């Protein structure tokens, strides 16, 4: 759908204010950034995280009493999909050194490094290898590679400030120190980051960065990284086995309390299979498909927080799940593209956010939570949102000003993916602005882990979005692609070494699952829920009311 006339009329107001905004931008006059105090105020008033009716305290498990999103609590207070007594642990279907749960960027990096220690690796993944949020990350990856103006020191400060100074210092230190080495590693694997002819890597700002350190590969940075590491894993078929459409539904411990494998569910044949492993890397990613508070999401189809659920049952505490990242700029119109992420790189390159009158109301490079809260405020409180034909409100992201500043064709060249997407709807984003609204994007928190990827359960390692603490209460752009590679590599290396040197064999057990189920019954919680969710259910009521004999196990039939 091209923009209807009602929106085309409103675009004229954006065009009217554009020349003056460009003059200011060129003179280095930015819309004033909020002070730390004002940031706090807008978050307290308008960020979805603070909505008390949206959350409740968990009643069981290691973090009893912790108030987080209802949708996540529903899963944590749910019984197992399969009765643990029905699983025959004496009948092992696969045996390996390292089991990696999750086939995204973190899991694949872990598999490569574990293999390099000499370990045999199985990657178990819910969808196809690479169907993950990594693939969708567009903007870039932060790393202080330019010693003349940047260093891990400044990167560290930016990360801490972005996370409201709540981040775990050791995790941030490792993240920022390892960053340039991750870029080097990817370059040597043949990843095509954008460069100048002299070899200097192109970098730009993201929200909350003090130096331009966001490296990118056009606007498909995550896809380029994912397909590179996936390709390399396919060069090692003797050592790395990938089992697709088989999510883990439980961790298996042994009688010493060490992690010793997982139960997988083959979604195509409905079989449960047992994988015995000497160590396990949890790399299941995030949970946007829980649609917290009914928000749309940028996440891939399988982002349902499974790893959090099964590791929590096994006794791993969670942290920072009281905050969720709403990406400020998801598409709100055209409806077909709803929820799709518009990379922050547009704002990093200088595109203004403007309201229905064509006026700026926020600096375009605030950290994500602040930016999102300001957009929500402008729409629901100030009432200067742009009305969409589908009855919602959005804000203009003025992409054409980039063409006006950097030359005709800039948007098409720098953002080819988004340019094609919108052109399918008859919209040229080099000429017309985009309509955006905040969308569920990132699970800031997750499972507790240390800078060497270990957890309180020996043999269980963490990598990527499933872990919490690195980003504190809010992640900066470009630090998740970094996170998955830094902790993917560390978890793989350490899980590989542990499997070959430190792991102790023992009898396999699912006792922790039985115990957790019993706790749910004892706590008088609705015992009909099961978890992990695996996939969201988008079946509509008009279908469901006729599915008279369909059997739904949770969301899946």
């Amino acid at each position: 759908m091209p923009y209807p006339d009602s929106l085309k009329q409103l675009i004229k107001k954006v065009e009217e204010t554009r020349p003056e905004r460009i003059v200011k931008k060129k003179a280095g006059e930015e819309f004033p950034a909020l002070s730390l105090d004002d940031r706090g105020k807008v978050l307290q008033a308008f960020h979805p995280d603070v909505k008390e009716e949206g959350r409740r305290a968990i009643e069981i498990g290691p973090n009893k009493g912790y108030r987080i999103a209802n949708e996540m609590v529903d899963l944590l207070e749910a019984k197992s999909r399969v009765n643990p007594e029905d699983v025959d642990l004496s009948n092992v279907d696969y045996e390996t050194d390292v089991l990696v749960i999750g086939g995204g960027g973190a899991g694949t990096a872990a598999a490569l490094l574990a293999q390099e220690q000499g370990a045999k690796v199985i990657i178990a993944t819910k969808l196809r290898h690479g169907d993950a949020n990594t693939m969708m990350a567009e903007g870039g990856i932060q790393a202080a590679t330019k010693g003349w103006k940047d260093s891990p020191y400044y990167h560290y400060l930016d990360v801490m400030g972005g996370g409201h100074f709540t981040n775990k210092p050791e995790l941030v230190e490792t993240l920022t120190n390892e960053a340039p080495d991750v870029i080097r590693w990817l370059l040597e694997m043949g990843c095509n980051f954008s460069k100048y002819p002299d070899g200097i890597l192109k970098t730009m700002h993201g929200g909350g960065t003090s130096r331009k350190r966001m490296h990118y590969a056009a606007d498909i940075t995550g896809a380029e990284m994912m397909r590179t590491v996936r390709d390399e894993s396919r060069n090692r078929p003797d050592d790395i086995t990938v089992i697709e459409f088989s999510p883990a539904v439980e961790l298996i411990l042994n009688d010493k309390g060490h992690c010793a494998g997982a139960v997988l569910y083959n979604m195509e044949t409905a079989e449960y299979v047992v994988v015995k492993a000497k160590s396990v890397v949890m790399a299941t990613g995030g949970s946007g498909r829980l649609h917290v508070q009914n928000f749309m999401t940028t996440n891939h189809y399988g982002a349902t927080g499974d790893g959090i659920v099964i590791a929590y049952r096994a006794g791993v505490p969670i942290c920072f799940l009281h905050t969720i990242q709403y990406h400020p700029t998801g598409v709100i119109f055209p409806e077909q593209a709803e929820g799709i992420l518009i990379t922050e790189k547009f704002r990093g390159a200088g595109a203004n956010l403007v309201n229905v009158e064509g006026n700026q109301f926020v600096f375009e490079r605030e950290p994500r939570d602040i930016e999102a809260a300001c957009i929500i405020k402008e729409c629901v409180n100030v009432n200067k949102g742009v009305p969409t034909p589908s009855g919602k409100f959005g804000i203009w992201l003025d992409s054409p000003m980039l063409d006006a500043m950097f030359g005709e064709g800039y948007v098409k060249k720098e953002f080819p993916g988004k340019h094609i997407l919108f052109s399918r709807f008859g919209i040229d984003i080099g000429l017309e602005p985009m309509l955006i609204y905040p969308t569920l994007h990132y699970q800031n928190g997750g499972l507790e882990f240390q800078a060497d990827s270990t957890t309180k359960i020996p043999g269980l390692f963490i990598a990527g979005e499933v872990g919490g603490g690195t980003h504190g209460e809010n992640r900066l752009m470009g630090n998740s692609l970094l996170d998955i590679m830094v902790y993917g590599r560390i978890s793989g290396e350490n899980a590989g070494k542990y499997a070959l040197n430190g792991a102790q064999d023992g009898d396999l057990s699912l006792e922790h699952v039985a115990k957790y189920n019993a706790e749910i019954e004892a706590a008088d919680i609705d015992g009909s829920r099961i978890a992990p969710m695996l996939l969201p259910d988008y079946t509509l009521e008009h279908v469901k009311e006729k599915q008279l004999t369909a059997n739904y196990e949770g969301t899946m039939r």
Partner: protein
Amino acid sequence: MSDTAVVTEEVQEVKAEMVPVYIMGKRYDVPNSLTIMKAMEYAGYQYIRGAGCRGGVCGACATVYRLPGDYHIRVGLACQTVVEPNMYLTQIPFFPANRAVYDWENIKGEAEEVFQAYPELFRCLACNACTKVCPMDVPVMDYVAAIKRGDLEKAAELSFDCIQCGLCATRCMAEMAQYHIAQMVRRINGKFIAPHSEHCHKQVEAIKSGYYTDKIKEVMELGTVDPFDDSTKTDKIDKLIELYKARETEPHTAVEDWKPESDFALLK
């Protein structure tokens, strides 16, 4: 918060006109504003295969369709393509493909190595069916031609937008899996042909040599705030916040060799 500003993935109360589509030959009436993916869910399908990122980059939902009275084969990504009345469609969530295994550590970056890994390149008949079927408008036949004449840099550039959905391989008379070949070529381009990024290696060395260690330790010692414990908001944290506020921001329009006023914690 106004509910009008909150939306879910689910199909909202639809005012749109209903149109017939034929999913694997079987008719369903669906709202005309939906993508093929949402239309299939509207019809009652629950995806296991055939859905991935739902954002047009993962290649899981390649779809082939025809329109009535028209011999052309049309393609699209189910998550990106809006339904058309009377379209006959099927998804192709998987197609077997040959992928060569190569030892990356010993690759030298020569076109010969690609030829050896994928000799089927030279069976290309230049029929262009691959390009016609690409949902990303990648000029597949052109990049295959570039590889054949040894221009790997050009091939890497032309194939960059490939999402590896595999539709090209379904149509190839030479039975190639073009997208796997292009992947090998792009990796060679990234490592051997693209200019070397010396500054990155220099920084890695500096970090490994401990050049920044003391300064980072100093700032780490200022600690962190426990969001549920106000007593952790100490003087040290105030100092950390001061450092954060005082950091110099590279101007937006700064040139590449911009240097901050202070050279604290920078390579000299």
